[in-house]
């Protein structure tokens, strides 16, 4: 079947309630069932318990990522991200880490590329502070991917004010606006 029907009108805000499994029908990807594109694009929410005593190190990596992006603003470009949110929170006496990413790339399809980027930007070192993370991840991508999938908490609702619009399209629109503004300024 063609997927042309999923190309929607960006002027009509849209919400999508998602079954518990995270998908409507089982569509097999290379590493398991694939998650659907929603009005809020692709994304994942990974929640995992951190190893005791590693909170400060994990927080420090926030600054490291900031520095990486300052030095190399397009370091994460291949992921086609909209937003990343990293959160540390408590459940009882334990500390948990939440990694939430909103992006246009179908993570199920480009998983290995994402892992390569994680390595390049030091994100992987945060993962190493999570309980159950495979320590042979450098040579064992399937184990890394298994961990991510096991700790993925699918949304049961996603909403988009401008649904299905990619970051590339937004950037093109802003560039066009900028170009028009500049042109109009020059015509004054």
């Amino acid at each position, binding site marked *: *079947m*063609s*997927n*042309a029907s999923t*190309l929607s009108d960006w002027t009509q805000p849209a919400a999508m309630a998602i079954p518990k499994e995270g998908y409507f029908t089982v*569509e*097999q*990807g*290379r*590493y398991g069932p694939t998650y659907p594109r929603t009005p809020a694009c692709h994304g994942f929410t990974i929640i995992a318990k951190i190893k005791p005593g590693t909170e400060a190190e994990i927080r420090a990596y926030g600054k490291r990522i900031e520095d990486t992006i300052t030095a190399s603003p397009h370091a994460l470009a*291949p992921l086609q991200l909209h937003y990343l949110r990293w959160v540390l929170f408590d459940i009882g006496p334990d500390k948990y880490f939440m990694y939430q990413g909103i992006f246009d790339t*179908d993570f199920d*399809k*480009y998983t*290995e*590329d994402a892992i*390569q*980027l994680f390595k390049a930007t030091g994100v992987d070192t945060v993962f190493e502070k999570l309980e159950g993370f495979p320590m*042979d991840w*450098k*040579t*064992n*991508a*399937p184990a890394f991917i298994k961990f991510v999938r096991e700790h993925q908490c699918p949304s049961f609702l996603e909403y988009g004010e401008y649904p299905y619009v*990619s970051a*590339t399209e937004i950037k093109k629109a802003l560039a066009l606006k900028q170009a028009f503004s500049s042109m109009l300024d020059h015509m004054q």
Partner: protein
Amino acid sequence: MLELDDIQHFLLNRPRAQAARYGFVSFRRPEHGRAWLSGIIDRVGRAASGGPFDSRWVTVAFTWNGLRALGVDEASLATFPEEFRQGMASRAAILGDTGANHPDHWVGGLASPDLHAIVILFARDVAERERCVAEHRQYAAQFPGVEALSTLDLEATPPLDYAHDHFGYRDRMSQPEIEGMGIDPTPGSGAALKPGEFFLGYPDENGEIGPLPQPEILSRNGSFLAYRRMEEHVGAFRDFLRANGETPAEQELVAAKLMGRWRSGAPLVLAPQHDDPQLAADPQRNNNFDYAKMDPHGYAVPLGSHIRRMNPRDTTVNMNRRRIIRRGGTYGPPLPEGAAEDGIERGIAAFVGCASLIRQYEFAQNVWANDPRFHELGNERDPFVGTQDGTYDMTIPKRPIRKKITGLPAFTTVHGGAYFFLPGIRALRFLADGPCVVPRR
């Protein structure tokens, strides 16, 4: 350094073969399978032999079920990658093998768990193939527990001046070279790749040595092969060209846009308006192009064309982790130009060699060939190796207005496929010797 005396020749040497036979084998009795294998190991080509060195070249590879049928123990079998254990037919949904391509319709016993091994014979010519086939038939008669499930004969499609498929597209234009082999990649082909991208037990492009299935003697110097038997619907293809081009020149351009190269092999990036057979035949020039700088919007090579999907070059990340080595040939009689479709099956029967089926082959098939949103296209698949059912499009960027072909027909149908492990020579001996206790790493 590659152990060339242990690696099978298949992915490293390309014999000048005009004919081939693929034999698909089932081991009904393990001891017969091992004895049969034992007797042919010395005929299997080694990479160290160089080439051309003979008039026939033999390759042997096994499915996961085949390794079990030869007596490999369950603990060892469990160390092979999951996608190989499952086999190609079980990965149909991932590979896009649906509809007419579904394994339910596959021929030759390829979707069956009884498929255990493939023997690939490349021969200088048809006469030599027939001689070898007769010789092997006589040899195999000693082992009634080794059953031939099916065979497929291949012959190069004339004219024989260069390799091409039944559609007329020149083949073998872009193949990776491997570090340590002493062959300089042609301009535009990128640096030679680390051997670990294709052979187990060597550093890969990340500088890592990936996990080795156990025991190591079985996996070291081995590779994985993805086999595809794909019919080419030459009549439908020519009808399509006629429907989408008013003149022969226009039809030729449409054919070039689907592929990204003229049928001569000349790349559209370097020859966007007219074919250039001299360019096509010059390996110093015919692969020397990129996309990001030379054709970012696809005015020469459409974003969804075959070569731009299967090798996006500098418009993707980690390209060197996705490279594959292709081998194979054409089967079935050629359909003469101007002749009506005769209903006879013809196509290509090819192998993809790699170190990781899931990272290299399956990625290419699942994402590059079949992801409708590749390069933000929206509703397109690879025109040749993507799964087509008449609902996908093909966009040809063009100034001032792009050309959009809707409802692209299926030019190909997959009639079979399988995942094989291509062991080294020591591993073949290990398999032939049968079950024994080998210390695990």
